[in-house]
């Protein structure tokens, strides 16, 4: 067990810090939350800046420790988030890198790294949430194209994306073809005819997501990654990636938020409330441990040579609840201020309500832990 960094890693960290200190003050003002073209431009410009400085590929770096350092330092320095580049860098990109042909990798990966192209994700459907494999969006072959009809939901950046990593059903569910078979992974150009994007407003009042309606959209067969009907396996590569390192920055952020909360509590007098103070102390232990769990999972993933496995479910289960508890504690510290949408905490608290639902509800995560990690019999 080793938590010290090598000289190389420390050098990487120092270089990154110096670079961030130089480049962050020069960034333009952040665009408004509902200015989607502005957000795309801001986020892709940041990715281009990273690329030019040699950090463009850091999410795909062979060294998970460097990824960890990158996420830690950028969060601490207040650098922009991955934003509109999220799907390209952390979902579609890794999938194409792992499962695509050399031609596909050459076509799609460099524009993602340079911040030239933005991807969105078309997985969830209104009737296939937790049960993703029950998706119904159909695709049938017509010459060199797939023709796709159906609808997708919870698609971020759909308004400004160039590509959509799309899961479609190419073989209807039957006795011979259970639902996990018969799914195919396609890269759909978002400017194709027949695509309608409708913003989806969340309880936080914002339109972070969209619904995407597909009416006989033509996608070239060459845009398929992996074999026809093998899309579930292809997708799983992406999903376990998502549950692995995707939260590193967020744990760092939570530890920062906890510090801010303690400062606010000391300032407004509620630090004298032992109930609250001890609650913050406990959360501090939780997030410290979650940070260690991230390092543990990353170290394990490197050892097994692959993407993080089921350890991600353990992490996500605890993290999502701990972060909600953090905002509940924040509400106690803020008192009536917790009802004020002009306090950033309030909007973040609302957003945090999705943490135990999105990317697999806590109930689904517990099933995964019970069956895949603990080896309990298939649930009923």
């Amino acid at each position, binding site marked *: *067990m*080793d*938590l*010290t*960094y*090598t*000289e*190389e*890693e420390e050098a990487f960290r120092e270089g990154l810090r110096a670079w961030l200190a130089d480049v962050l003050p020069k960034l333009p003002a952040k665009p408004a939350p509902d200015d989607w073209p502005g957000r795309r431009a801001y986020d892709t410009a940041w990715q281009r800046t990273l690329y030019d400085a040699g950090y463009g590929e850091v999410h795909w770096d062979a*060294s*998970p*420790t460097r990824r*960890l350092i990158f996420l830690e330092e950028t969060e601490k320095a207040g650098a922009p988030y991955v934003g509109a580049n999220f799907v390209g860098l952390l979902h579609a990109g890794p999938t194409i890198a792992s499962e695509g042909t050399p031609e596909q990798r050459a076509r799609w990966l460099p524009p993602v790294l340079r911040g030239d192209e933005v991807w969105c994700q078309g997985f969830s459907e209104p009737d296939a949430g937790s049960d993703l494999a029950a998706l119904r969006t159909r695709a049938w072959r017509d010459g060199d194209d797939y023709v796709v009809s159906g609808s997708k939901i919870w698609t971020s950046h759909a308004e400004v994306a160039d590509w959509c990593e799309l899961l479609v059903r190419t073989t209807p569910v039957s006795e011979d073809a259970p639902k996990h078979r018969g799914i195919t992974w396609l890269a759909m150009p978002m400017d194709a005819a027949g695509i309608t994007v409708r913003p989806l407003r969340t309880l936080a009042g914002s339109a972070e997501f969209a619904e995407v309606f597909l009416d006989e959209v033509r996608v070239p067969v060459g845009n398929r990654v992996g074999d026809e009907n093998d899309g579930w396996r292809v997708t799983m590569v992406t999903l376990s990636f998502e549950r692995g390192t995707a939260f590193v920055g967020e744990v760092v952020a939570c530890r920062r938020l*906890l*510090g801010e*909360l*303690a400062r606010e509590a000391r300032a407004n007098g509620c630090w004298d409330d032992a109930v609250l*103070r*001890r*609650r*913050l*102390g*406990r959360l*501090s*232990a*939780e997030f*410290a*441990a*979650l940070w*260690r*769990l991230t*390092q*543990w999972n*990353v*170290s*394990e993933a*490197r*050892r097994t040579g692959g993407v993080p496995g089921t*350890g991600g479910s*353990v992490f996500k*289960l*605890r993290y999502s609840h701990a972060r909600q508890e953090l905002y509940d504690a924040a509400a106690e510290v803020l008192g009536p201020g917790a009802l004020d949408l002009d306090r950033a905490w309030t909007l973040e608290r609302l957003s945090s309500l999705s943490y135990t639902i999105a990317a697999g509800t806590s*109930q689904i*995560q*517990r*099933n995964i*832990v*019970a*069956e895949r*990690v*603990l*080896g*309990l*019999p*298939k*649930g*009923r």
Partner: protein
Amino acid sequence: MSAPVDFQLTDDQTVLKRGIRDVLEGRFGRDALRAAVDAADAADAADAADAAGSVDNDAAVDARRAPRLDRELWRALGDAGFFSLCVPEGAGGVGLGLPEAVLAFEEAGRVLLPGPAVATFLAAGEVAGAASGEVVVTAVDGGLVPWLAEADVVRGDAAGAVAVRSVDPLTPLHRVPDGPQAPTGAAHVSRATHASRASHVSHASHASLLVAAEQLGSATRTCEAAVQYAQDREQFGGPVGRFQAVQHLCADMLVRAELARVAVYAAAVTQDPLEAAGAKLLADDAAVRNARDCLQAHGGMGFTWESDVHLHLKRAWVRAGLGHTAARAEEELAAAL
């Protein structure tokens, strides 16, 4: 090229952990555990008979026959290097570090090893004979003294200590009435060498961490036991482990144990007192709540004396009162925010 951050057990550590588990399971497997419980039980019954036949006075209470510490086991552990794991090789020890120590204590917690192992371990190199298991050392800790009657050396001021009928059949306890709640292994060192103030702080922190490691071992064990029972026990036409309610109970147990694991291991690597306090907090929680959930998963069977679940719960309660209590850990962590 040097190695990157590798927060996983090294091959040596895996071998060491496995080796300690083999020693402990060989020397103190389930049969030995139950025999020790039966012996403690018989002593308690004899005490009760004595008490019934005599007036109730402190001397009588003090004379209670506590469970006997298995000196042979203790020496065998000493021979295996358990107590001298962190004593420098030059001083006759194994020369390993705190990370190896927490692995050893995790295994001790797993088998519910009786005896003041943490105090003896921390005395190794300071108290002659502790490292070899010849001399049993205990310490005053938060108003409690485990194994006072059996110990050869007591660290801390145990004056006026009164025997308590311990909820844990394998941990005899004395209370030091109204004394200052000294942190484990610290402050007043009697019948033993004095140590520097800095050493006291790290003693206290290490003691909490090693107790936390025991809690981790227990939490892991009760999680495994719940899973095993859920696989074996049939109700409503199949193993109960196929019910989501049981599955989710077990999943939450694993999450608690794994969070405690990384907290304990990381605190051992960094030797940061705050991380140790946090590790104790999470490990106490994991041990107590996993034992409760394990009992729930076992249903009525977990409520019997013959089940081991209650032994884990009772020991977890005792350990939660040693070293950092939850309140103290939370306050220290809050103060550092």
